[in-house]
């Protein structure tokens, strides 16, 4: 039998061993999460660089030739897809980040980028007569009410199906309204948005609450 001395030491040694394994796990978890965050940050940096590059290219073409629209619209479409995909990725990564990094900063940065993209889309549609509809989807990111949470999830699914169906025909821009972004706050106030989810089509048609695929399709 284990001796009296060893008897007590086994509990202490097991505790040390457990803590080591536990902290290895926590460290590994933190490493995985920070790796994901850095991936998002890297993609954000790339996108931001491309946005700036594209903007400068548009400015350049505007200066030297009249027909800059084709290039600018194509660039904008490309960003549309990438921003949308990256936004989805942040949401998924956020759900799997359990140790504190909820990717809020990244979400805010992307919300800004999406806002910039939205404004650019409006500009291009007005200047170049681009043939697409902007569908801005306002939602709450940090929501405790299960009713709102699930109606937002359903609305998000419907909009994703719509985007899949119409592709470049719509610019889908999901914007969280509770991230403290002043430009979004101003717009929410300007349009009198008080219910979530809310969809704004081409900056004119406001659809508050949950709406079906058919309802939205009729308006685009």
């Amino acid at each position, binding site marked *: 039998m284990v001796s009296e001395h060893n008897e007590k030491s086994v509990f202490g040694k097991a505790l040390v061993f457990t803590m080591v394994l536990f902290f290895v796990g926590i460290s*590994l978890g933190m490493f995985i999460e920070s790796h994901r965050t850095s991936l998002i940050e890297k993609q954000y940096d790339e996108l931001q660089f491309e946005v700036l590059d594209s903007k400068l290219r548009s400015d350049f073409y505007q200066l030297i030739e009249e027909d800059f629209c084709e290039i600018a619209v194509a660039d904008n479409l490309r960003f549309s897809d990438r921003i949308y995909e990256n936004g989805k990725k942040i949401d*998924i990564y956020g759900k799997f980040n359990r140790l504190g990094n909820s990717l809020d900063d990244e979400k805010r940065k992307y919300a800004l980028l999406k806002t910039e993209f939205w404004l650019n889309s409006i500009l291009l549609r007005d200047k170049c007569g681009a043939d697409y509809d902007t569908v801005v989807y306002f939602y709450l990111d940090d929501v405790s009410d299960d009713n709102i949470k699930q109606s937002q999830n359903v609305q998000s699914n*419907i909009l994703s199906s719509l985007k899949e169906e119409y592709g470049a025909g719509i610019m889908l821009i999901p914007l969280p309204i509770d991230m403290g972004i002043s430009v979004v706050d101003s717009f929410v106030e300007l349009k009198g948005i008080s219910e979530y989810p809310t969809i704004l089509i081409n900056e004119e048609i406001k659809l508050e609450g949950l709406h079906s695929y058919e309802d939205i399709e009729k308006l685009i």
Partner: protein
Amino acid sequence: MEFLTGVYLFYILTTMYVSIVGLMVYYRIRDEFMDDPGAEFNKGLSVIVPAYNEEKTIGATLQAIIDNGYPKDKLEIIVVNDGSTDGTVDVVKKYKSVILLDKPNSGKADSVNKAIKKSKHEFVAIIDADSYPQKNALKEIMKYFADEKVGGVTGAALVKNRNNLLEKCQAMEYVLIAWTRKSLDAVHSVFVTPGALSAYRKTALKDIGGGFDTKVMTEDIEIAWNLLRHKWKTRMAIRAKVFTSAPSKVKAWYNQRIRWNVGGFQTLVKHWHLIGKKEYNMFGVFVIPFFISHLVISFTGFFVFLWVIFSKLYNWFLFSRYSIQQDSAVFDLSEIYLLPSVFTYFALLVVLLFGLAIYYSFKTFKEAKIKIDFAFFFYALIYLSVFPILLIISLYLWKRGYAKW
């Protein structure tokens, strides 16, 4: 970090610690895990078989005791018929060497106490009337009494009937329990001496008040606690194997588990005030805290589990309702993601630790013939999850004054 994440991590940490303690103890003693504890100690032994309506099994039990290999001149066998209404008495009367004590029904603890008083030897073994000690089990148990500080010794109880799913699950459970109990033996913390096969020193029984507590539903837990409390050693004789009949039907199994749990609560209430007291050695600093933490973890785990399940179901209901209202897909495979997280590592680790415990326990008790089949996964995933529910029911019944032996 979310509150639930904190709760999960706490559970993981606790599970890991308990598993690691068990495994570390096993690794320390694995070379002598099955070792012979020493020379034979074949002193006079009174074997008591309490019986209540056991006509189908008691004959085989008595035969297993008689043929066990213990010197006949040192062996006294007493059957206490606890008011049976079947043919138990007729079966017992066929065994001339067996003493029959016939009495009105008063419960197992009282029956055993009466038999202890009538028994002539210093050592008494209690064997349930549906349990079958393997060859030399009595000799193996008695070897531990060579140490004068040993007050109680239990054998390794394994399940005899392994036909249906419930029986197979219990067979695995008993193997794991026996293996864990031997590990606890190494740290002086055997806190149950099950009725299937356990033996006691009468001097120790006198010291703790005379015998079994008749007010507690699990007299085999209470007596072990009482012995530890009075600084007697309780040991596990792993070579003393006994096959016992496990409940075959859910109702019988349910009643047994409720009785075990209620008995556990009664025992805890009787001794819990000794928690943390170093003068009671491992009983105060390990057994009681271990028992209490097991209850706390089970209860809180159960409520967290309920909250998570109901919250998910409610959200799923809302999502489905809104989806149906808007004619949208209720279920979308593209919404299912599998990404590594901090829990992936811990889940693998806990599975590994649990797997090691299962591997070593199954290896230790090859005669239990446990297989990794459907029953094994059912045991790991379903059977074990029912325990917190049984605990909650037991707590409720205990508070309502449940008393059904």
